[in-house]
């Protein structure tokens, strides 16, 4: 029973990767590639956040902080400390997970809006540190001179090669998430979402499961941060503020809660939308806000949920016509 499910996830993730890798061949120019890279990075965080929010039911309004920790740590390690890039990357991901592990105990005891406030406060504190610790982070005007990524002698110095790397990473993250949700742990997470008391009475260790998914999603955010820093070779605190945390939550909800593919769609959609709206010039912000409101109003289960319903309706109509 388990085998075929794993097989199906591998096929899905493989097809997804093939689709991603084919994208550059149909793009008219490399400018769109930059959008795709940033979109994939956001998708990595959104998939992780969805594990926390959609499946385990714990909101986080501070995920940009983990993204930022990943980015700044690798930046500092690979420049100031002169460490090799793989070490810096591991340190970036590792530290964001350690911070999450430490925070998990007190913060995940909180519920609902209190949890939202606590994660929000955590995010703001971290953002202030990025901004004020000028000697370490370079302060508000940013951190310059981060090396472009090269691993095992291969330099990812073109946008094309970097995109391929990010696409592979995203596909692996999707694959792992699909598998996780079909595992015993995944079922436990969903159980504690519905009712912590019921889950506890089934012998599920609530605190340990919450901590696990919190640390995992923080690690994914850190991973995206590391890739971001080595892509842009520049980081500034403004990229990791409250605004981005909120945007991540919007990506998850807009894509569809508790749906791995939804987060990918939501992240790509929200990253590309403002670029597509450039044609509207001054009123683009109004169009953006209106699209956001209308999408949530008319597709309460997110973009993927809406697409799914449309698909089923079409199939029904198709069947009816066939008869």
């Amino acid at each position: 029973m388990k085998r075929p499910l794993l097989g199906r996830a591998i096929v899905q993730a493989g097809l997804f990767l093939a689709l991603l890798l084919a994208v550059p061949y149909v793009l008219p120019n490399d400018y769109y590639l930059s959008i795709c890279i940033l979109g994939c990075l956001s998708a990595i965080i959104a998939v992780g956040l969805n594990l926390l929010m959609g499946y385990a039911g714990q909101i986080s309004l501070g995920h940009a902080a983990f993204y930022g920790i990943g980015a700044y740590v690798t930046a500092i390690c690979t420049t100031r400390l002169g460490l090799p890039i793989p070490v810096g990357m591991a340190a970036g991901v590792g530290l964001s997970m350690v911070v999450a592990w430490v925070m998990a105990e007190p913060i995940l005891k909180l519920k609902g809006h209190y949890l939202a406030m606590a994660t929000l406060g955590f995010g703001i504190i971290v953002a202030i540190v990025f901004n004020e610790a000028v000697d370490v982070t370079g302060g508000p005007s940013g951190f310059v001179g981060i090396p472009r990524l090269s691993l095992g002698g291969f330099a990812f110095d073109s946008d094309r090669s970097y995109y391929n790397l990010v696409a592979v990473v995203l596909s692996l993250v999707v694959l792992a998430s699909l598998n996780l949700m079909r595992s015993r742990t995944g079922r436990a997470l969903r159980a504690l979402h519905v009712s912590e008391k019921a889950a506890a009475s089934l012998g599920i260790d609530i605190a340990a499961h919450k901590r696990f998914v919190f640390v995992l999603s923080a690690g994914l955010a850190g991973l995206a941060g590391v890739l971001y820093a080595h892509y842009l070779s520049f980081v500034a605190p403004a990229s990791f503020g409250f605004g981005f945390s909120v945007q991540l939550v919007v990506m998850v909800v807009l894509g569809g809660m508790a749906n791995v593919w939804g987060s990918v769609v939501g992240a790509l959609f929200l990253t590309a939308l403002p670029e597509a709206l450039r044609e509207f010039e001054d009123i683009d912000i109004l169009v953006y806000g209106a699209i956001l409101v209308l999408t949530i109003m008319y597709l309460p289960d997110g973009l993927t949920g809406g697409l799914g319903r449309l698909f089923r309706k079409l199939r029904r109509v198709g069947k009816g016509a066939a008869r």
Partner: protein
Amino acid sequence: MLAGAPQYLVSGLTQGAAYGLIGLGFTMIFNTTGIINFAQGEFVMLGGMLSVAFLGLGLPLPVAVLAACLATAVVGALMERLTIRPLAGAPAINAVIITIGVSILLRGGAMLAFGKDTVALPAFSGVKPILALGAAIQPQSLWVLAVTLALLAALKLYFSATIQGKAMLACACQKKAASLVGISVARMALLSFGISGLIGAAAGAILAPITMTAYDVGMMLGLKGFAACILGGLGSPFGAAAGGLVLGVLEAFGAGYVSSGYKDAFAFIVLLLLLFVKPSGLFGKAGVDRV
């Protein structure tokens, strides 16, 4: 060590009263609908910007401020009617995302309508500071404190002495039970958004002479207001006001004695520690889990 303390206290109380007022707006909406309204900060922004705009049209200051508050109340009510009510039955997180969308719309609309510049509103009664107990107090600070107290008193009266206020409290306690005894929950939600808009705009208008205002001040003020009502314990108007005062005083003393760069961080660290010790805020009742 204590040098400047009276001044920090005065600054903190002024700022804190405004945070409390904004927190009050959050509380109104939360109590009737269970939604955290991320557009609350934009109501505050509208209060300030519309006051300046109406003043520019030649209205006298008190009329301009009043008109701005009423106009924002209408915006709040419209927001509920057009974007929140159609959602009925959807998960609360969807409503929260909607309020984020509305806040983007309001901010964008204000930018296009009023421009991107920071603007100032004249003080309600002069700018000559009053010197007392080693602190200089702006007359406008007294206005902020007075308006906050007046609005708190009015709300208290509303909830305890009017049938409508009691109906709204009933919605806060138990929506289903309230609708069973014949209260229109939808109308109460509409009303709560309206009142919340009014309170937010009042906060924006009384604060504008001190702090000035621009189309993009809403987000930060909204965050502080949210923090105020969590600090005080979500759901209690008194708690929100008190939480605001505590937050404002924390910030002022943090800037004075710790570091001006880390003063917001200082306030939030205290907030986090408090939540870790008492997960339902200063005045919240433990064990209430409405979410």
